[in-house]
């Protein structure tokens, strides 16, 4: 099957400065792909190459099997794009934007436009010059979604959105994914990628330093464990912790620890200890994310 996005040794430099460098990526239909990295890592440069704004310095990028630079117009028939820094025409309203998109795509999107405006709670006749930043972000989302694209390229889509709208957006994206839409989702915030994406790539200084399914990351992620023993004396007399459990803090009858890997050994160890209470937190992907940065810094 033709991948939705495929890049081969993709590089884009700005003079001596590196935007992206040697990126190989393959995203299959229906995937929700998170592109994670701090500001300046090369996420937006990569997206701008995909959209045909920037010509690659070397290597190539293809969407739906078409070259991103030469066939940009045809590609954009199937792509919805949300820029990272949303700037819109001051006179633009939801209604006018839908009208322009209809004319550009030669379709009727009044219905989807109305539905999206209602779901995102935005007045269809309010011009951009009277909108808050969050409202402008909503309008930009409508522009990206209204024509029902097969691929959504979203550059930090939740910036400027309040938590409730973020939930609505997540629902919208899940709905689209169920219908087979592929989502390329760039962010510097792990939490939003974590909740939405099937697979995540971590980019740093223009290079991909990790690319794996989010479930695999979760399995490897450390979890916070808090153990409360029957008494401080029981805590002091407890057996040494099992492999994978690192005690960070001992405070009277309470241990705070980090668990790496499966919980089997921990469960067996706990059964032999006088434990009164136990709390195991969710996998903390942040530590993995930070670890990737530390590792590559060490390599540098």
């Amino acid at each position, binding site marked *: 099957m033709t991948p939705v996005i495929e890049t081969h040794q993709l590089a884009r430099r700005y003079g001596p400065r590196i935007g992206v460098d040697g990126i190989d990526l393959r995203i299959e239909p229906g995937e929700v792909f998170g592109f994670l990295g701090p500001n300046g890592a090369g996420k937006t440069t990569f997206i701008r190459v995909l959209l045909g704004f*920037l010509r690659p310095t070397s290597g190539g990028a293809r969407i739906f099997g078409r070259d991103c630079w030469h066939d940009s117009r045809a590609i*954009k028939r199937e792509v919805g794009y949300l820029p990272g820094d949303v700037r819109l025409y001051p006179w633009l309203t939801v209604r006018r934007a839908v009208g322009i998109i209809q*004319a550009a795509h030669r379709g009727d999107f009044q219905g989807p436009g109305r539905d999206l405006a209602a779901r995102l709670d935005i007045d269809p006749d309010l011009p951009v010059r009277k909108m808050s930043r969050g409202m402008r972000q909503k309008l930009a989302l409508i522009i990206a979604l209204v024509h029902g694209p097969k691929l959504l390229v979203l550059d930090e889509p939740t910036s400027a959105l309040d938590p409730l709208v973020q939930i609505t957006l997540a629902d919208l994206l899940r709905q689209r994914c169920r219908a087979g839409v592929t989502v390329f989702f760039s962010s510097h915030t792990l939490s939003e990628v974590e909740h939405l994406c099937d697979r995540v790539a971590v980019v740093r200084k223009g290079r991909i330093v990790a690319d794996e399914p989010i479930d695999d990351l979760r399995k490897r992620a450390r979890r916070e464990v808090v153990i409360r023993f029957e008494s401080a004396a029981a805590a002091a007399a407890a057996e040494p912790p099992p492999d994978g459990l690192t005690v960070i803090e001992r405070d009277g009858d309470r241990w705070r620890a980090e668990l790496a890997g499966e919980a089997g050994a921990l469960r067996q160890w706990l059964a032999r200890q006088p434990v009164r209470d136990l709390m195991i937190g969710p996998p903390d992907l942040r530590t993995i994310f930070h670890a990737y940065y530390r590792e590559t810094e060490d390599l540098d």
Partner: protein
Amino acid sequence: MRGVLIKNLREMWLATLLFALAMLVIEILLNIILPQILGQMGDLLERMPFIRQFLAALLGVEVEGEITAQLMSAFVWVHPVVLAILWAASIIFCTRYPAAEIDRGTIDVLLGLPVSRRGVYLCETAGWLSAGLVILAFGAIGYLIGSRAMELEQRPALALVALVMVNLYGVYLAVGGLTCLVSSLSDRRGRAVAVIFAVVLASFLLNFLAQFWDPAKHLVFLSVLDYYQPAAILRDGAIAPADLIMLFAIGLTGWAAGLEITARRSICTT
């Protein structure tokens, strides 16, 4: 393409109307005021003979003996305000894409649509060319209204006025074509406007200086205004094809170069 045309129409109509109204008003005023000045021109030229050279510089022909009504009619089409309106319109419309779109960051949304860069460029060109026609049409209407203040025998034939307008449209195209080229190389509209304004100003001054300063005469072919000769058109009853070809060639070269550069360049908004 239709979506981009709708967007352009929405953004350009007001500016076009304002430029057109300005042209209408200035043509009416010049046509009313100039015949009155004409009566006093003989005395003025005797007292200040250098005015003859200023007029020659503007009109592009030697001004000898009496200032005729024909010359004064030409003057309403070379008045600096008329040229400024036309040039301002051309510069503003031709820096809209890509310079202004990149400058304000809206190009991300525009080129997010299924349109080619060349397609957007052609839509912008259609807007620019149409706006020029509207502005000149309003100028012609203003001229016709204002020229009622002149004696009937002093008014030039409409066919001659139309030829002057064709020549003036050539100037609009030449300035616009060069502006398209500068805009295609720029990420900032202000910078593009400043560069082309400097070029136009230099062109104007060169044409002016050539009347007084011999070295400038050798360079005057570089001035767009050297190919704009309304007085000669009114005098000879014909437009010089070489002038028109030169103006169209300048415009077309700049426009075509701008098109290719816009289509091939990388676009960064940050």
